[in-house]
């Protein structure tokens, strides 16, 4: 019986072993991105901006043109690229510290300007790369190396809900929060990535996909426990789903989300 190939490495994924910890969500997100590049046939026109964070070496894996960004400044770098090359598909890939703390101004204003770029936002509730410190998205009560007693609203404030916040900006077109902790959620994440890139190809403006992503190492959990923690705890602070999606007909008429 002839064998049927049902699973293979995406062509846009380099043949290099990931340096990520076992059970890390970055690897899954990378793979999904590469599958999307293949399916949309945009490997040759994609330009990516990896962050300072655990994904700083994303260019070792994604086989597309990429340029390093200073911590948090990805959307500004992407803005410069996209404005010069409007027919390329430009994306930034950012962690929660990168996007929601040090780089909140750059992401907020790129969104508000409605830059026609895609932002892939990996929310793992900690600073992974620097050893598990508190992130703007660290959940209430969560212990980290810099919130040893657990995050409290009195001392650290509430976790930043990036999707909810950015949905209010009239420059944004499509915003969805996904997760990569179950096969079903992974499929939804893939669809969201495809949609974000397609919107950009269709010149529909700023899109952002937040991906709740396990960091077993800094959460001090097994990969399975980490996936469960996303369902049990993280999704309570960060509900999954489409936060905003302006139908193209409405966008053409010049109606924006604010007026919806």
């Amino acid at each position, binding site marked *: 019986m002839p064998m049927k190939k049902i699973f293979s490495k995406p062509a846009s994924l380099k043949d290099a072993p990931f340096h990520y910890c076992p059970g890390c969500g970055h690897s899954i997100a990378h793979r999904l991105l590469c599958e999307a590049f293949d399916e949309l046939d945009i490997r040759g026109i994609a330009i990516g901006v990896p962050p300072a964070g655990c994904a700083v070496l994303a260019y070792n894996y*994604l086989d597309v043109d990429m340029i390093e960004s200073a911590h948090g400044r990805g959307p500004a770098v992407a803005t410069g690229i996209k*404005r*010069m090359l409007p027919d390329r598909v430009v994306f930034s890939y950012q962690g929660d510290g990168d996007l929601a703390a040090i780089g909140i101004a750059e992401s907020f204003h790129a969104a508000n300007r409605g830059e026609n770029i895609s932002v892939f936002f990996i929310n793992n509730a900690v600073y992974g790369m620097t050893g598990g410190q508190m992130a703007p998205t660290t959940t209430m009560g969560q212990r980290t190396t810099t919130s040893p007693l657990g995050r409290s609203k009195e001392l650290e404030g509430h976790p930043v809900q990036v999707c909810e916040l950015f949905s209010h900006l009239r420059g944004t077109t499509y915003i969805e929060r996904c997760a990569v902790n179950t096969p079903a959620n992974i499929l939804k994440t893939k669809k969201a990535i495809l949609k974000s890139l397609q919107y950009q190809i269709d010149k529909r403006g700023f899109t952002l996909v937040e991906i709740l992503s396990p960091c077993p190492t800094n959460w001090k959990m097994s990969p399975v426990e980490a996936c469960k923690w996303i369902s049990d705890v993280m999704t309570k602070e960060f509900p999954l789903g489409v936060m905003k999606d302006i139908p193209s007909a409405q966008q053409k008429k010049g109606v924006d989300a604010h007026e919806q």
Partner: protein
Amino acid sequence: MTEKVLMSGNHIIGEAAIRAGCRFYAGYPITPQNELCEYMSEHIREQEGGVFIQSESEIAAVNMVEGAASTGARAMTSSSSPGISLKQEGISFLAACEIPALIVNIMRGGPGLGNIRPSQGDYFQATRGGGHGDYRTIVLAPATCQEMADLTMDAFDLADRYRTPVMLLADGMMGQMMEPVVFKEPKPRDYPDMFMLRGAGGGKSHFIRGLLLDQLEEEEHNWKLARKYAIIEQRETRCEYFQTEDADVVIVAYGTSARVAKGAIKRLRPMGMKVGLFRPITLWPFPMNELRKLSEKTKYFLDFEMSLGQMIDDVRLALQGYADIGFFGRPGGVVPTPVELANIIEQRYFKNNGPEKRG
């Protein structure tokens, strides 16, 4: 194009940049460079593909420039002292990633918020790299409106040739002042496609990075940059000599303070005092050898700055052991008058029956 036009310094920089092919400008308002920002908002957009962005901060601006320049576009940002401090991380990244770009600093009084008066207080920051890490930035210091036009164009050529950020360093006085200028014909651009990030197409993908986790790799990258800087030091120094041939005293000054120095010399010469000016045009690389050569004839040099002794470090490196060095400077946004400087020189000139001996 050889027609003479009267324009202010900030506008001249903008016009020269556009003529040199700059197609991306990002900046954040700060006095005394706002006219440059405003000029770009109108005129760069008149060019095909020309982009102006008023960014959310100076940090965003320099990072936007990094993105735009990485695609191969000529790109620039401008600011004044506090804003330039914010750009330093980005300038360090440009140097590390070897991306050409122009950064204009129209200096104002500092430290801190300081004031909006002309100053030269950012000499150290500009010439010592400014941001973190072992790198240098080419620094061009115009002293006339014509030079602002010429050096802006040259800055883009130098940035391309050495794939490095270049800073144009002027001050609030130069930004505002008006003089007639002739815009020269820009040179055709010579920048290889291989350094441009434009999508992999059907071929191999590329990446631009400054992160080298292996320390030996990072060391080698630093050596490579150092070799480049050594070539720049050999080839790119520029300076002006003004009445130095017979001078007993040579003032060393750049930018606005060099203009003041010329005014002082014009007063002192008719009184029989042989005073000249050595004006560095490149602050990094500093024209060390050119200055030292002057010590064969002149034994007293007066370093004159609108700051409290920054360039004097370079003057000492050039002259220590070869000639006596004096200093006069006023910080905080004060522009000394030619009369004031002439009085200082006069006192020192006749002290001890000629050039004074102290440093």
